[in-house]
């Protein structure tokens, strides 16, 4: 399995797509940096007024960063198994003294390692840019640490789904399925927030909230994203992001986190199972 992890990791550097993601990332960080610099200079000196705005910008920054990482995950993993089957490379690999689930897990850890490093780079990039360009927010070590862990957990969940798709269908099919599920999660997240905002106004919006919860069950990435936000910004009992479409809202329960973990493990199990049954 170590061999598969090693070569999967190496292979990522030979993908042209990675280069585009890097380009996209740098462009994004540059634009984002300029944007917040301008914005922060125009802000009032009073902290109580500025704080919600800082956190808002950080949330938005991390939100789009997570989209970039999701994009990286889909392009690097939708074909992780299927493309090798389609090209015929897998025929030579699987006739070795190696179990098929080892190949699946090897791909998961190989791509996962790369994606995690990339996620951390983006996460700390956004935090660093904000700090450097004048965001007067103070994070404790545990806030940043837990926030970073939650941030890199999202792409790993998506990765497990992509691998399951890649284990049982074509690269195209796996990519479409993953993008659709991820899209559900995003839209579901918004819908749930809208429901939450409406309910703050005193009206009932259980339908919207339930739709969001169902989307989270199909793909729990957005729930993790909100958890990350609450971890980052709910210090000292103040939670700034109550009224925001991307972040705020009800903080996902511990049960949701447990569900997300189970979901990821189950997807990996399904990937290994499907791949073991696949005709190569």
């Amino acid at each position: 399995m170590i061999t598969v992890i090693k070569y999967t990791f190496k292979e990522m550097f030979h993908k042209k797509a990675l280069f585009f993601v890097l380009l996209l990332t740098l462009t994004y960080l540059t634009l984002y940096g300029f944007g917040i610099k301008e914005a922060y200079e125009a802000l009032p000196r009073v902290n109580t007024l500025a704080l919600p705005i800082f956190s808002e910008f950080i949330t938005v920054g991390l939100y789009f960063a997570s989209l970039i990482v999701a994009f990286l995950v889909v392009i690097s993993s939708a074909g992780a198994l299927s493309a090798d089957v389609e090209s015929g490379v897998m025929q030579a690999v699987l006739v070795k003294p190696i179990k098929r689930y080892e190949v699946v897990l090897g791909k998961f850890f190989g791509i996962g390692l790369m994606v995690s490093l990339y996620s951390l780079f983006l996460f700390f990039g956004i935090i660093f840019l904000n700090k450097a360009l004048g965001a007067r927010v103070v994070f404790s070590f545990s806030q940043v640490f837990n926030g970073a862990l939650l941030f890199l957990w999202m792409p790993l969940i998506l990765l497990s789904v992509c691998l399951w798709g890649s284990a049982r269908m074509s690269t195209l099919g796996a990519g479409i399925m993953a993008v659709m599920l991820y899209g559900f999660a995003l839209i579901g997240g918004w819908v749930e927030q809208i429901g939450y905002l409406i309910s703050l106004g005193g009206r009932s919006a259980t339908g919207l909230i339930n739709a969001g919860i169902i989307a989270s069950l199909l793909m729990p990435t957005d729930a993790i994203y909100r958890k990350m936000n609450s971890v980052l910004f709910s210090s000292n009992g103040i939670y700034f992001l109550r009224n925001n479409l991307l972040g705020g809202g009800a903080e996902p329960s511990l049960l949701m986190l447990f569900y997300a973990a189970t979901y990821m493990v189950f997807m990996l199990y399904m990937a290994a199972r499907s791949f073991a049954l696949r005709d190569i």
Partner: protein
Amino acid sequence: MVIETFNLTKQYDGKGGCVDINLSVKEGEVFGFLGPNGAGKSTLVKTLVGLLRPTGGSARVLGRPLGDIRAMGKIGYLPENFRYHDWMTGLEVMRFHAELYKIPRPAERISELLELVGLSGHEKKKVAGYSKGMQQRLGLAVALLADPALVFLDEPTSALDPVGRIEVREIIRDLKKKGKTVFLNSHLLSEVEMVCDRVAVINRGRIIACGDLKDLLFENSALTAKVGSPAEGLIEELKKIALQVKLQEDILTIKVAKRDDIPMIAKVIVQSGTPPLRIKNGRRFFGGAFCKSGEGRESY
């Protein structure tokens, strides 16, 4: 037995593939698996190496069930549609597969094999830049990496030049000398007959003949003689020695029971006063079977 199959069947949605295959391959023999395009040769081999899941029957390879890890370490396989990670160099491909085989310190073995398949000097090039023949040579080197006890070669010379074909033949003979078992897929009788001890012939997914190559060739061989008009009583005379005699236009087709009868037949024809214009030991080798099904015009 190195390979034993019991009604092994692999079909794709109930169609194609191979059906009810019963084979046994002994240790140290070179076994030829012959058949026209689409007969089911690759399907059987891919099932035996665990890439395809059988839809029926069972098999044992190196004494273990299909796809068993302990057996896979001693098996080499050159796929029909060989492809290797094209972002690696030839050398890297060899190292990668050596790691998969868990071969400790493979460097020497790798350079030895690259030399053997005629790729030394190209090992630092990216596989993407290899010609088809070079990729097939690389595939052969990968198949031999673990010094396997059993080697499956699925049409190993399909992309090779004539010199390459001779080299592969030599490699197979060498494997046999070392006591290895080779399972060779081919649709060319000429290729198989030079190296194989025993063959099986498959057509439309089923084995239609299996045994010693010489017997199979002979069982299906017939003598043809162009005779002008045959003398009185010649055919009756021939029927006494031959299994079957047919006259079509001026061509006599004579099936004989054993090779030693051939000079006798020639003698009878000449003595009858019919000057044979031409006598040919026409090898048809399952030509009939294949032609009936409308496939393969070659010399099966």
